[in-house]
């Protein structure tokens, strides 16, 4: 039950793009085509889940026992950067087809604030799923990261679908490109507001 609450809350109620504003740059940057948006979402999903597990363990077993919590920011960004490199190398060897599909997006993910954002949220914020406020344990953190990144994929793919249609329309010159995309995102965010209060 608690896992279900985490999943619904992370995908719909607190959607990472439309209500927490993390990872907006790729949301606006690579959402012109549905295929690239899908590729980017897949890569982000993979990296967020993996890096949250790794940074959670590093925080729990290395930084906290040594009293070095203030190094979280530096430690996490280094771990994420290294992890993205490793994922790139491993994918190239194991699954060249997946590497081809995600390839160009992987290096970009290091500076995607969704990844660092989720990693920091999981180790610093208290959650109130299932009654009492508590820090997430490893299982909950993994589910939270996975659900959040699925929410990322959901809104990214929906948005790309809308933008593909927008491209063929006659938009006033000053609205062309980003402004109309932002207004579209605003209407999408309004739709997602409908989920608030569900959990």
């Amino acid at each position, binding site marked *: 039950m608690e896992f279900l609450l985490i999943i619904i809350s992370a995908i719909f109620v607190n959607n990472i793009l439309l209500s927490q*504003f993390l990872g907006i740059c790729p949301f606006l940057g690579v959402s012109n085509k549905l295929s690239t948006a899908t590729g980017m979402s897949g890569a982000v999903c993979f990296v967020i889940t993996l890096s949250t597990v790794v940074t959670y363990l590093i925080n729990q077993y290395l930084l906290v026992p040594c009293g070095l919590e203030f190094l979280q920011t*530096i430690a996490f960004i280094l771990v994420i950067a290294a992890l993205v490199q490793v994922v790139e190398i491993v994918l190239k060897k194991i699954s060249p087809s997946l590497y081809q599909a995600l390839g160009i997006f992987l290096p970009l993910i290091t*500076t995607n604030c969704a990844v660092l954002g989720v990693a920091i949220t999981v180790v610093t914020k208290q959650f109130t799923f299932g009654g009492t406020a508590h820090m997430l344990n490893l299982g909950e953190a993994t589910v939270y990261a996975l659900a959040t990144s699925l929410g990322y994929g959901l809104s990214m793919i929906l948005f790309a679908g809308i933008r593909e249609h927008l491209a063929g329309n006659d938009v006033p010159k000053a609205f062309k490109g980003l402004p109309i995309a932002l*207004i579209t*995102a605003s209407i999408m*965010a309004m739709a997602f507001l409908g989920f608030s209060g569900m959990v």
Partner: protein
Amino acid sequence: MSKLGLITKGFIKDNPTFALVLGMCPTLATTTSAMNGMEMGLATLFVLVLSNMAISALAPIVPDKVHIPVYIVVIATFVTVLQLLMQAFVPAVYSTLGLFIPLIVVNCIVLGRAEAYANKNTVFDSALDGLGIGIGFTLSLTVIGIIREILGSGSVFGCKFIPGDGILAFVMAPGAFMVLGYLMVLFNKYLKK
């Protein structure tokens, strides 16, 4: 370019929000009120100036292959310094801005200026460039914050001048996208050369 021009080009011509379209996450998330927007802008300005100076001093001795990781570590160091300073002196501001202070590390403006300007110019020029871009960022965040605060809660910098509740949607997520979208339209129409 004159020293003054280095600073003023960040206001409109190279405005990080409206012209370069960088650092969208804090722009949308922290502009719920004019004060929050301005504080976020100033926090970014602090990191931007210091990291620009450090990177332009370090650039000649950093090997080309590892320059991005080195820059990220330099930026992350200054962000940690900022986090500790804010926790010590302005804990209320730190807790309002929350997650978005550590996220300055991955703000594309900071790394963008390091790559595009600081690594091939002098320390002094880089400091001015950081200052200009930082002020530009602070200005646009404050403007977005003012508009959202007026529409959403009928006040500016906390001084209430319209009675009643205001349009709640402008303080929440949809308003952020909408205000930024329409401001960008105005910018494209009247200010873009």
